[in-house]
């Protein structure tokens, strides 16, 4: 996918002015956390489970060579073709080759952020293939020529009205009103059903790969991925090398975290494990199956300081809980992965230079780390990326100067206390009458939107010391 992260600030300003979209984002910010909280509370051992799965993920990554090799061995035994792709280009050409070998024209595709990363659809379409996204959200944005705004619910930025107009324009089905959401879903079902039945190749992603038995796990509510996996005569599973887990029970242990964190369910409607092509006794299923396992910098991340990011299970909870994401929406981030996880992942998968704004799209509130089912210290990773920006001189010179000045002062506690006490006192005296400032030097951005409250006369440290003295007396 083409990257526009360098215009994050402009994208964000534009998004803030879109009041209709802001209303829908507000809904996510209110309801998604409530649903997650209820689901997590319903599973009493959630924290212990989170720790267990973290240990399993760390163990899997520590021995990734072993487990990836074991998965490949088992998957080949199950009758699959297993391919490895260094980067997006590799993955795209492997998939196109398979499609061309089968003279395929129609592709039914399940939701896969990995193939968004590699721009697979555009690549296949350029070669003359008809690729249809079948997850309802992905289908909507594909028809609209847009990109996903959320990794779990890709079309959340669109209103029912917009979708109605889109369907009426794109589907040649005569005059009809489509008054309710259920009518819209029904129409998409009808259009996509036909495509499913005609498609020669199905492409899906995977939520996990299981080393011990060579199965891949697919988690959906719509069942579209399962239709892709069962109806066409060729199935291609595209995922990344870091998804492998040792045991089947590890995949379902992770599932307990994933589903509660993503949608607040205890299990989605469909959790499916696929091992390969049709067996002798089968009456349906693909005749040929492929795994395409993508690296695309994962092995680099594994070797570096941000390897914990590979433990991300793509639930989207950090998006739903992020004050920045729920204000500006996913498109502002300008690439596949938005929100806190995206702000870490995007610089790692593309470059820090291209994504310089993203690690700064953070208030350090810490909610993402609190709710992350993989226990990834997202605010710490974002801070480390900001530090890297500063070291590489990617951030604005005045920011770097300001931070340096602050660091110099903060390392000298007594001077720090004296200087802040003077500043606070001056602000207190100046603002005593009005109680707040409508303008302040060096804080124009802040005061352009709201007043700055005038400080109390004393700093926290002065009050704290006074309290201790009082207690001693």
């Amino acid at each position: 996918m083409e990257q526009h992260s360098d215009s994050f600030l402009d994208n964000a300003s534009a998004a803030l002015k879109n009041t209709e979209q802001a209303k829908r984002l507000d809904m996510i910010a209110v309801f998604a956390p409530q649903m997650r909280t209820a689901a997590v509370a319903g599973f009493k051992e959630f924290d212990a489970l989170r720790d267990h799965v973290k240990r399993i993920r760390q163990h899997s990554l520590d021995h990734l060579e072993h487990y990836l090799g074991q998965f490949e061995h088992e998957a080949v035994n199950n009758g699959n073709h297993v391919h490895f792709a260094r980067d997006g280009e590799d993955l795209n050409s492997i998939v196109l080759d398979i499609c061309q070998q089968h003279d395929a024209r129609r592709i039914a595709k399940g939701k896969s952020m990995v193939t968004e990363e590699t721009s697979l659809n555009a690549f296949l379409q350029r070669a003359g293939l008809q690729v249809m996204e079948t997850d309802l959200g992905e289908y909507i944005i594909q028809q609209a020529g847009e990109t996903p705004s959320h990794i779990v619910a890709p079309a959340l930025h669109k209103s029912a009205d917009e979708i109605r107009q889109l369907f009426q324009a794109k589907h040649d089905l005569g005059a009809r009103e489509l008054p309710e959401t259920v009518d819209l879903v029904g129409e998409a079902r009808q259009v996509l059903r036909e495509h499913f039945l005609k498609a020669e190749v199905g492409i899906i992603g995977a939520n996990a790969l299981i080393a011990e038995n060579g199965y891949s796990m697919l988690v959906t509510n719509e069942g579209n991925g399962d239709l892709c996996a069962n109806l066409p005569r060729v199935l291609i599973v595209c995922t990344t090398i870091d998804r492998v887990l040792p045991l089947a029970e590890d995949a379902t242990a992770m599932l307990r975290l994933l589903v509660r964190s993503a949608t607040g369910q205890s299990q989605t409607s469909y959790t499916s494990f696929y091992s390969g092509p049709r067996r002798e006794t089968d009456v349906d299923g693909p005749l040929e199956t492929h795994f395409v396992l993508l690296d695309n910098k994962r092995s680099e991340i594994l070797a570096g300081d941000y390897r914990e990011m590979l433990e991300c299970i793509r639930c989207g909870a950090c998006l739903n809980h992020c004050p920045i994401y729920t204000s500006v929406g996913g498109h502002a981030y300008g690439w596949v992965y938005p929100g806190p996880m995206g702000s870490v992942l995007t610089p790692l998968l593309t470059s820090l230079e291209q994504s310089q704004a993203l690690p700064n799209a953070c208030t350090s509130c810490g909610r993402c780390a609190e709710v992350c089912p993989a226990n990834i210290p997202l605010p710490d990773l974002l801070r480390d990326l900001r530090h890297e920006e500063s070291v590489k001189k990617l951030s604005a010179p005045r920011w770097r100067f300001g931070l340096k000045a602050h660091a110099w002062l903060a390392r000298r506690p007594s001077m720090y206390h004296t200087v802040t006490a003077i500043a606070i006192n001056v602000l207190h005296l100046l603002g005593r009458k009005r109680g707040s400032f409508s303008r302040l030097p060096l804080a124009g951005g802040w005061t352009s939107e709201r007043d700055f409250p005038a400080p109390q006369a004393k700093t926290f440290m002065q009050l704290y010391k006074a309290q201790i003295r009082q207690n001693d007396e």
Partner: protein
Amino acid sequence: MSNSARSEIFARLRELSSKASEEDIQRDRRALGSAPAPAPETLEICEAFLANVLKNHGSVDCAGNRSEAVKAIGYHLYSHFRSHRLVAGNDRRLAAMPWRDAGVLPRFGSLEVGEPVALSFAQLGVAETGAIVTWTGKANPAAHNFLPEHHIVLVDTADLVPTMETAWARINQEFKKNGRPRGINFIAGPSSTADIEGVLVYGAHGPRKWHVILMGKVPASALEMARASNMPA
């Protein structure tokens, strides 16, 4: 191309790997144990399973024996479709049901496009999540799970397991007996989507209705208690 990509990727991973032996890696994994179990279920297993099926927006029925099960299927078909027709896989257990008791006429084979109802005999029911488990094969073509308007599932009380770990233990036994099936499907609800403005709609692509019939010795109050536990507090 993919061959050189494979060796490159594995070479890089080897550099990063712990170089531990397979035995050591397996021992380390065993030492990590199993996931903490969900809070011990205070409900009886049938009741817990039924309560979770309801929570997953399935509809439920209980049947004490095969004759009652057939009648429950007949009732569901007649009340929704005014018909007694359905499709079922070539499952010996389904072939042996006393279909005449309810005048139900199953067609044994694979669902054809346009046929509205499929019946599956679940291999397992998981109380923890209210999911039923099927695997692909003659007895249950995959299309039966994902293509019909209604999916009716029979679950034998003897096939209920408490957790997903116990489900895997049973599936691993099947692997030993008959090899790995192509697909293993945990189903926990009708096909649904909330992709348009977060509004939940059933029948996104697959079944609009998911009807589970629990067959066998089900405690008399189980269904009533399961329904009560799904009432808003």
